[in-house]
């Protein structure tokens, strides 16, 4: 599969042949401009492939209505993008409302999700986004993406804008959510440690194509080429040791 933007001399993404299994936590890892966000955005058709096809559950995404497709796929971005004129509850309830759920069902779902991301519904339901910290806002962003029980959750550098401590706790949360819900997650990051920490499977990208895919340990122990070796860096040995401890203890 490939994507070439109009007026671009080189394709943003080319010759990608990739399958992500249901329930997997897949991380697209690579430097900025490597095409990882573009590749992610083809999944919910925010970007259309200019060649090749993209299948979800065996069906070509281009044969489905784009808005209907997106309502079944959670999407979280770095800038969060909460609707500032909506309360936390209205933000989380956006997709269920688009799907025409009854209000009582939406309310119940909102509270359930706020508890899932560990924000007390009674305290947070009626707040406006401007009354949230960066970490809280991103938690609400995750809750919004999960609201209609999507089978796939797309996350585009979701934790890049928060400080290291908040990032670590958000990483723990998303790992836990993944374990509890079993949602397929495709996660974009340029942060090697974040990728190693979260991924079942890492997809290393450079200059628009996939360089290597595999579980974190394999990427560390058998980097496919110099690019991957440089990316995981001289700390590969320490990172490999860190992997041996289960996430929950870290």
């Amino acid at each position, binding site marked *: 599969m490939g994507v070439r933007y109009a007026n671009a001399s080189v394709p943003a993404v080319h010759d990608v042949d990739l399958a992500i299994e249901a329930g997997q936590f897949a991380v697209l890892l690579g430097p900025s401009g490597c095409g990882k966000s573009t590749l992610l955005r083809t999944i*919910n058709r925010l970007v259309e492939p200019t060649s090749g096809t993209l299948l979800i559950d065996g069906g070509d995404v281009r044969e489905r209505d784009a*808005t209907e497709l997106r309502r079944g796929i959670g*999407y979280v971005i770095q*800038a969060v*993008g909460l609707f*500032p004129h909506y309360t936390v509850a209205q933000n989380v309830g956006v997709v269920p409302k688009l799907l025409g759920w009854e209000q009582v069902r939406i309310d119940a779902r909102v509270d359930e999700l706020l508890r899932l991301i560990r924000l007390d519904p009674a305290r947070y339901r009626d707040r406006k986004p401007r009354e949230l910290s960066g970490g809280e806002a991103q938690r609400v962003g995750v809750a919004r993406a999960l609201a209609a029980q999507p089978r796939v959750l797309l996350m585009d550098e979701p934790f890049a804008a928060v400080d290291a401590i908040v990032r670590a706790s958000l990483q723990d949360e998303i790992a836990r959510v993944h374990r509890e819900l079993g949602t397929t997650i495709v996660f974009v990051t340029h942060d090697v440690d974040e990728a190693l920490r979260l991924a079942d499977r890492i997809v290393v990208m450079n200059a628009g194509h996939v360089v290597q895919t595999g579980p974190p340990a394999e990427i560390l122990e058998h980097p496919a080429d110099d690019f991957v070796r440089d990316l995981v860096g001289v700390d590969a040995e320490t990172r490999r040791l860190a992997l041996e401890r289960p996430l929950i203890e870290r």
Partner: protein
Amino acid sequence: MSADFIAHVGAHVALAGSALVLALAIGIPLAGMAADRPLPRGLLLALAGGFRVIPSLAILTLALPLLGLGFRPALLALVVLALPPILVNTDVGLRAVPRATLEAARGTGMTERQIGTRVRWPLALPVVAVGVRTAAVEVIASATLAAFIGGGGLGDYIVGGLQTANLPELVLGAVSVAALALLADAALGYAQRRLAV
């Protein structure tokens, strides 16, 4: 309060109100359609800038041969006066909505229409409201000019007072127009604060 005075206030409000409603009906959809199209947007903003520098009295005079005396040329001049702040503020309001917010809206599966009605326009509205408020005050103040071409309104007292050197009549006209403008400003200011996010 004499029936004559009330009739003049009524005529003034009718003229200014029609001009404002007309300018809103033209300006908001126009700016909305042009906001994401560079060429129409450039032309529209240039037009708004042009309208802004033409004196209302000049438009009145130019409209006279086409529309004759009275209400209609006055209305045209006032619509031209009201359009720039409405066009510019609608444009600014729509374009100030963060890209991330629109991207998120698209990502949740809203249709383009839903993005407009549920996200983009509600977020632009407070800025649009500032333009409406500016336009309203300008139109109420300038509707006074209509009296020069027989358009009626509170300007009649000012023109009449000037011609007959009748100071109380002149002051009555001036103070009433000022009071009306301040009243509209306060009312729309309240509405605008209610709209703010």
